[in-house]
C-alpha cells in the first residue's frame, strides 16, 4: 500500500517537475525543477530496490551536475523580453525536433510490444542476498570489465580535452611557490647587524 502511494507520489512529482523545467520562465527556476525531478527519480529507483543507483543519482546529478548547471545559469544575464521574442523564429525547428522525438517514442514502444530484439546474451538478474553494490561490482569488474575501462578512458580523454581547450599560459604572473615558502627559515630571510654611527649599511 505504502509502496503504491510512494510510487504515484514520486512519479507524479517527476512528471510535473519535468514539465515545469520547460514551462518555468526563469532559467534558475528551471534548474530547481530539474533538481526536484532528479530527486524524485532517485525515489523511484529506491522503490525498484536499486538503492545504490538511487544514491549515485543524487550524488552525481543533484550534488555535482546540477550544481554546475546552476552555477552557469545564475551568472547569465537574462533578458526576459528577448527570451520570448524568438518564439516564432524557432517554432519550425522546435516542431521538427518534437516530431522526431514523438516518432522515436512510437517506434520504440511498437518494437518493444512486438517482442524486442535480443541483441546479446544479457546477464541474468542475480537473485541473492547480496546487496546491489556487491552485485553491480561483481558484474562490472568481471563480465563488463573492458566496457567499464573503455568508459573510464573516454572520460579521461574528455577531461584532458576540456583542460587543453581552456588552459592558457599567461605571461607576467607571479605564482606562489608554497614548498619554497615553507622551506624558508628565519636565518635565510633576516640578518642581525650592528653598524657603526654614520656608516650606514648595505642591503
Amino acid at each position, binding site marked *: 500500500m505504502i509502496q503504491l502511494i510512494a510510487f504515484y507520489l514520486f512519479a507524479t512529482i517527476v512528471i510535473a517537475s519535468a514539465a515545469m523545467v520547460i514551462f518555468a520562465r526563469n532559467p534558475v527556476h528551471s534548474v530547481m525543477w530539474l533538481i526536484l525531478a532528479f530527486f524524485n527519480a532517485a525515489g523511484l529507483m529506491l522503490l525498484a530496490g536499486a*538503492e545504490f543507483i538511487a544514491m549515485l543519482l543524487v550524488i552525481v546529478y543533484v*550534488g555535482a551536475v546540477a550544481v554546475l548547471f546552476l552555477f552557469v545559469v*545564475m551568472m547569465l544575464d537574462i533578458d526576459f523580453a528577448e527570451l520570448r521574442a524568438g518564439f516564432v523564429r524557432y517554432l519550425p525547428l522546435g516542431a521538427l525536433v518534437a516530431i522526431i522525438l514523438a516518432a522515436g517514442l512510437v517506434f520504440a514502444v511498437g518494437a518493444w510490444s512486438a517482442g524486442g530484439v535480443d541483441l546479446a546474451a544479457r546477464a541474468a538478474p542475480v537473485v541473492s542476498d547480496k546487496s546491489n553494490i556487491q552485485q553491480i561490482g561483481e558484474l562490472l569488474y568481471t563480465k563488463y570489465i573492458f566496457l567499464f575501462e573503455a568508459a573510464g578512458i573516454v572520460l579521461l580523454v574528455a577531461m584532458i580535452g576540456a583542460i587543453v581547450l581552456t588552459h592558457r599560459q599567461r605571461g607576467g604572473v607571479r605564482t606562489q611557490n608554497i614548498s619554497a615558502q615553507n622551506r624558508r627559515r628565519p636565518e635565510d630571510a633576516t640578518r642581525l647587524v650592528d653598524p657603526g654611527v654614520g656608516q650606514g649599511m648595505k642591503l
Partner: protein
Amino acid sequence: MTETFISWGMDPNWAWGVATICGILLIALPLMLAVAMIIYADRKIWAAIALRRGPNVVGPFGLLQSFADGLKVFLQETIIPTSANRGLFLIAPIITFTVALLAWAVIPFNSGAVLADINVGLLYILAISSLGVYGVILSGWASNSKYPFFSAMRASAQMISYEVSIGFILIGVVLFADSFNMNEIVKAQQGHGLGIVNAFGFNLLLFPLAVMFLISALAETARAPFDLTEAESELVAGYQTEYSSMSFALFWLGEYANVLLMCTLNAVLFWGGWLPPIDWAPLYAVPGIIWLFAKILFFFFVFSWVKATVPRYRYDQLMRLGWKVFLPISLLWIFLISGYLMLTRYS
C-alpha cells in the same frame, strides 16, 4: 521500537509509522537542544582562548544565552528585500536546515540504535551533504545582492572541491570495513588497532585519511580557517547578509547541526563511534551513546580550537589544498589500501 508498539497491541503498519516518527523526534529535538548548547560552548571556548569571558549574563554561567538569542530572532520581523526572488529567498534557509537534519537518520548511536539501518548509509550521507550547498547557492542568488552572490559562488566551488576528496577518503574506510552500513563500519573497528584499540584511526594506513577527513570536514562545513563564505572583512556576512529573524536562525541552526554531524562522522568513521576507545570488557558497561557523545564533544572542541587559533586561508590556497594536495593523496591512498588488503585479506 516497532516491536514495543506492536506488543502494545498496535497494527504492525501503524506501529512502524509511529515508531519512525518517534525516532525522528528522538533525534531531532535533542539535536536542536544540542545545537543551542554547542553554540554556547563554541563561544565559551573561543572566549577562553582569547582571554575573554564569553556569554555570562543570561542564566547561570550564561548557559541560557543561546535560548535568549533564539527568542530574540523569533520575535524579529522577517525582512525580504524588494528585489529578492521571494520564493527561493525563503526556501533557501529551509533547505539548509532540513538537509542538516536529514543526514542524522543513518547515524548509529548504539549497537542497532539507528533510525534507518540501510546498507548504503555512507552513500546516503554523501548524497545528503551534497545537497547542503543548494541552501547557500540559492540564498546568495535569490538575495539579488552583490556580496551574498560572491559568497554563494565561493561556497559552491569550495563544497564541490572538498566533497571529491571526502568521497575518496570514505572509500578507504569502506574498503577496510567492507560495508557501506554505518553500524557495520563501527563494528569493524572493534579491536582494529593491535587487537585492543577500537579505532580505524589507530591504523597507520588510515590515520592520514583521518587527518585529511578532519580538515576536509572543516572546509565542508565552511568553518574557520576555511570560512571564506562568511569572510566578514570581504563579504559582510556572506550569503546570510540579507537574512533576518527566523530565516537567519534556520541558517544558524543548520550550520551548527552540520558541524555536529561532521564531528559525529569523524567519531563514527575513524574513532570507533559508540565503541569504547579500548577493547576491554569493563568499559562496555558504559552505554555506547556516552562514548559516542564524548567523542563528538572532543571533535567539537577541536573545531572550536581551530576556529580560535588558525587564521583564515586565502581562496587560492584553499583550492590548492583541495585539488592539488588532498585529491592526489587520497587517490594514492586508495591504491595503497586496496593493494594492502589484496595482499593480506583477500589472498
